[in-house]
Every structure is written in C-alpha cells, then in structure tokens.
C-alpha cells in the first residue's frame, strides 16, 4: 500500500495541468488567474474541511459532488454553444467581450480552485488525515501554482486553447480527481441512473402500448428491447453522456472556419495564411484531445477503483445438529473489531454468504452479503461505509442492518454471551429468495 503523499500525486498533477490551461486561456490576465486560482484552492479546502467538521461527511461529500456535477453540466452547455457557433451562426457579442474581462478570468480560476481544493480536502478527510495534511496539501498547491506560472511562459506560443477546450480540460481534470474518491465519483452513479432510466422508460412506454400482444411488436423485436435491460445499457449510455461534450468540442474546433483569404492577391501569401490557420486549428485540438484521454482515465478509475476495500475471504461455517449456526464472538475472528466479517454456509448444494459486523453504535448485526435489488456481487468495506460491488452504492455503517434499497438484507439472529446464533434453514431461505428475485429482475426483459 502506497503512503498518502504518493497517492496525492495525481491530484497535484491535475492541479498543475489545470493551472496551465487557465493561464494559457487567460493569457491577458495571468496574474489575476493564478491569484484567483490559489485563493480558490485555499477557500475550497478550508470550506470542505469546515463542512466535514461542522456538519457530517455526508453533507460535505454531497455538496462537493453536486458542485462537480454542475461543472459537468456547464461543460455540456459549453459544448453545445461551441458547436452552435462553429456552424457560423451569430452569437451575442457580449459573450465574447465578457469572456475577455479580468473578472471573468478571475471567476473561472476561482471556481476551478474551489472545486479542486474541495476535492483534495475530501480525499484527505476520507483517510482521516488531520489539519497538518490539509496545510501541507495547500502549500504544495501553491508551489505547483508557481511552477505552472513559470512553465506556461516557456510553452510555445503556438499552443492556444479555445474557451470550450479550456472548459473541457478543467472539467475532465476535476472528474478525474474526483473519480478516485469513491464517494465523489460521478461515473458510477451516472451509469446507474441511465440503467434505471432505461428500465423505467421501457416499462412505461411498452406498458402503455399493451405489450406483449401488440400488433406492432413482433417476437424478434423483444430481442432488441431486451438489450435495453442488459447491464451494458447503463455503462454505454453513461459513456455516451460522458464523452459527447468533449467530442462535440473537438468537432467544433475542427469545423471552425478558416479566415477569409480571397482578398489577398499574392497566391503564396494566401496559401501561407491558409496553412497557418490549419496548423493553428490543429494545435487547438491538442487540449480537447488530451481532455478526452483524461475523461477515459476517469472512467477507468471509476470502473476499477484503486481504493482498497476490506474484503475478507468468507469463512466456511457449519450448522450444529439442531440446525443452528453459532459464531463465537472471539473465535477465529473478532466480531467486535468494527470490521466486516464474511461467512459462507453450505449444505446440500445450497449456500448462503453472510456477514457479521459491529456498527458504530456498538450493536452486532448479521446481514446477507447481498441486497434486495442488485446482483449478489457482495460488499466491501471502505471509508466508514460498506460498498455494493455491483452498483457501487455506499452504505453508511450506521444503516447496515436496516432493510431497504441496496442495504444488505438483514438476517434474524440472536446475540448470546458466547456469540451469535442463527437458524441455518432461515438463512438459506433468505439467501435463496433474495438471490432468486434479483436474478429474475435482471432478466425479466429477455
């Protein structure tokens, strides 16, 4: 396991890259941009830290998550505007002039800084690091800002960034950093949303058409409709939503008109101008193309999170003759250490995976290693909560043992002096019904 400073490297690199883009975009107001960025970073980190301590982690993370989400929505609108403008249609001229003001440059840099600082604070809070770590992170950010200020000056003038390109770069870097914190990750919830939407849509739509005997629906069509229920829909749909803005921005740069050259009499000069414009346009593609790569990295980090879950191997248990499973409190494992413990009960080809855990309130709970709605991929434990591997939903430790949603399904048990007692038959029955129903839900469209 890498130590914390190493893990912060991607965050700081992203911060540096972000500043480079900001400085290049607002090259007329470099000092304003860098100052606003640093101030924003400090405020963001401090603000998130306060939220964590005044309210709760849930609130802080929720606020940050929605802020990043808003950034993504803004990227969408920027992309739409960019593509609209590239078709040569007019755009209110105040947009142009506002984009060049010092206030605008400062504002964008401030916002980017606040978000980045907040994300870093969330990361640090998630590992339980204290004030000193936050302070060091802020210091590193300032040093990096200085470095970025120097490096940007050295970059060749040929590289320019279009407004939408800058937006794409900023948002991609924010999403990249936030994707490495499971609670802040946007891609997994997005794909869940898309899948749920597809489900609901198909249900609503086809129920209103009186399926399955509707005249227009042939049986083979059901094959295609079934695709909408597949696991892939969520992923591919989310992927489309994820990448379309940056692709639109790339397209809009590519569609940019070349400057008018007909008035230049001399052929050589005219051609030189055209060639320079094409070269310029190609260089402006660099930043959005790199953002595209960063977006893919974010998806990768979200799909294969680098966070280490506490996920013990299930311990096989057997039932006594009276059909009772007894798990001693201090036996092979210590049930009361606050960690998740998994057990596997197997009998006559039936099996049931379940977990025992001590909640923060100090109550022992026994639950299935499966929930009532997802495929039984199981749970892992991280950052004060358990996470469902299938839908990546985080369930706070306090609510483990309560039924509903993606919470692990509770199992009836009795706590005695020597340990936890449960009924094997009831356990197997709960497991079987749960797993059967979730498997059926997943396949009902087929």
């Amino acid at each position, binding site marked *: 396991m890498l130590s914390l400073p190493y893990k912060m490297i991607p965050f700081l690199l992203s911060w540096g890259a972000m500043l480079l883009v900001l400085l290049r975009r607002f090259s007329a107001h470099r000092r304003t941009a860098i100052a606003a960025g640093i101030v924003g970073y400090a405020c963001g980190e401090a603000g998130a830290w306060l939220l964590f301590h005044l309210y709760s982690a849930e609130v802080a993370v929720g606020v940050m998550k929605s802020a990043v989400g808003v950034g993504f929505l803004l990227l969408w609108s920027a992309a739409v505007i960019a593509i609209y403008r590239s078709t040569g249609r007019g755009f209110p001229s105040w947009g142009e002039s506002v984009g060049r003001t010092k206030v605008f440059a400062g504002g964008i840099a401030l916002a980017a800084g606040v978000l980045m600082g907040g994300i870093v604070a969330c990361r640090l809070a998630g590992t339980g690091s204290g004030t000193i770590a936050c302070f060091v992170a802020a210091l590193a950010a300032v040093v990096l800002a200085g470095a970025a200020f120097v490096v940007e000056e050295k970059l060749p003038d040929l590289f320019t960034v279009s407004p939408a390109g800058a937006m794409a770069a900023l948002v991609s870097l924010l999403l990249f950093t936030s994707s490495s914190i499971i609670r802040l990750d946007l891609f997994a919830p997005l794909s869940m949303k898309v899948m749920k939407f597809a489900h609901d849509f198909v249900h609503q739509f086809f129920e209103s058409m009186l399926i399955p005997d509707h005249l227009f629906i042939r049986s083979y069509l059901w094959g295609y409709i079934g695709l909408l229920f597949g696991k892939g829909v969520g992923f591919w749909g989310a992927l489309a939503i994820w990448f379309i803005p940056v692709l639109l921005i790339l397209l809009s740069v590519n569609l940019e008109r070349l400057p008018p050259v007909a008035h230049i009499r001399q052929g050589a*000069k005219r051609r*030189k101008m055209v060639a320079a414009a094409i070269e310029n346009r190609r260089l402006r593609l660099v930043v959005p193309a790199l953002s595209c790569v960063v977006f893919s990295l974010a998806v990768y980090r979200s799909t294969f999170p680098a966070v280490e879950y506490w996920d013990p191997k299930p311990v096989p248990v057997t039932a006594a003759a009276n059909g009772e499973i007894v798990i001693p409190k201090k036996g092979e494992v210590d049930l009361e250490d606050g960690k998740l413990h998994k057990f596997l009960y197997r009998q006559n080809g039936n099996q049931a995976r379940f977990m025992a855990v001590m909640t923060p309130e100090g109550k022992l709970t026994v639950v299935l290693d499966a929930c009532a709605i997802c495929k039984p991929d199981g749970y892992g434990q991280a950052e004060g909560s358990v996470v469902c591997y299938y839908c990546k939903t985080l369930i706070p430790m306090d609510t483990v043992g309560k039924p509903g949603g993606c919470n692990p399904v509770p199992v009836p048990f009795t706590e005695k002096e020597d340990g936890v007692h449960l009924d094997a038959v009831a356990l197997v029955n709960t497991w079987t019904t749960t797993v059967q129903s979730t498997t059926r839900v997943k396949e009902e469209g087929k």
Partner: protein
Amino acid sequence: MPSAIIQTTGLTRSYGDICALKPLDLTVPEGEWLSVMGHSGSGKSTLLNLLGGLDRPSDGSLRVGNEDLRGLTEDGLARFRREFVGIIFQQHHLVPYLTAVENVMLSQYFHSVPDEAEARFALERVGLGHRLKNRPGELSGGEQQRVCIARAIINSPKLLLGDEPTGNLDHQSTLMVMELLKELRAEERFTIVMVTHNPEVANWGDRTIHLDDGVLVREERKS
C-alpha cells in the same frame, strides 16, 4: 539606393583541402539581375548553393534577405528555401511521375498548401496552358524548363537562382526562356542570380561577375 538582398563578406567554402570558393565579398542590391560566369570548377555552382541555403559556408558571413544563413538550423534553412528562394536547374529535375501541374503543386505543398487553380494559372503564364496534364517525359526541353520556371516562381520568391538554366536548350528555346524571365521579373520584381558560361545569356543581366578558381576576377556592368 535599393537595399542589398545579398551581402557576403569573406565567404569561403572548402571541401577538405580543396578551396572551392576563396574569401568573397559580394553585394547584390534588391531587384538586380546578376550573371555569374566562369569555367567549370570555378566555384560558381558552389556560390549558388550557398546563396540558396543548400550548402553551408566554411567561413565568412552570408546574409540573404534578413537572414543570417550561418545561424540557421537544417530545418531553418529548409524553411528559408521554401519561402525565399526559387531555383531553376540545368537538368530541370522534374518529378517524372507527376504531370506539369502536379510538379508545380509539389512546390506549393512544401511551401504551404497545394492550390491547383493557382498552379494552372502559373503554367498558363509561362505559356504552357495546353500542356497541363502532360508528364515531363512528354515535354520538350524548353517546355520542361518553363515548367521549372513556373515551379520556381509559384511561391513568389524574393530570389531566383538559375544554375545554367539554358545549358541544355537550343538557341531558340534559350531566347524564349530568357525573354520569359525578363517579363516575369518585370512583374514580380525578384532578384536573379544566374550561373552561366554563355556570354550571350550573361548579357541579359544587369551585371556580370567572373569567377576563376574561386576568386572574383572581373566585374562588368551593363551600361
């Protein structure tokens, strides 16, 4: 007094022990037509290559336009050649598998972007409007040389270098080519430096310098 487009002081080029060009001081004002005469091996081709940025001097200073050619990198020299210089060769050096128009477009390609209409127009200007789609093998020597001229001037160079451009042509074609160069110079106002051993051809220029064994021996100005 027009400013100098070429200025050399103590320009030297030696290949090992052989000194092809002894220290040479030469100034060519903008718009001049300079003829360089001499026997073979007198260093006139070496001078031309140096002026065109194809070769590097061993010593001395060499300024063409506003560029100090000694300070340029290999790619910088290439960029200088494409924007500043047009060259006409004795052997024409047309690409055999490209048509006349495509040969001109090749020059445009290296300069910036190919533009067929413009290339076509350039060929019409040198009187080859009817031979656009012919390959070099299907053209006569004089026609090939005119394609070569069209290719040399397509990027509006400030300096046109001719390396015995009429060396392979008969008398009539020579006259035609020289007449064409004169016309084009009147329109485009480029400077011409032309190496030749034909006094009649040299006479078309404003000034003639004679090189012998890498040394400038004589200079005559047309009155």
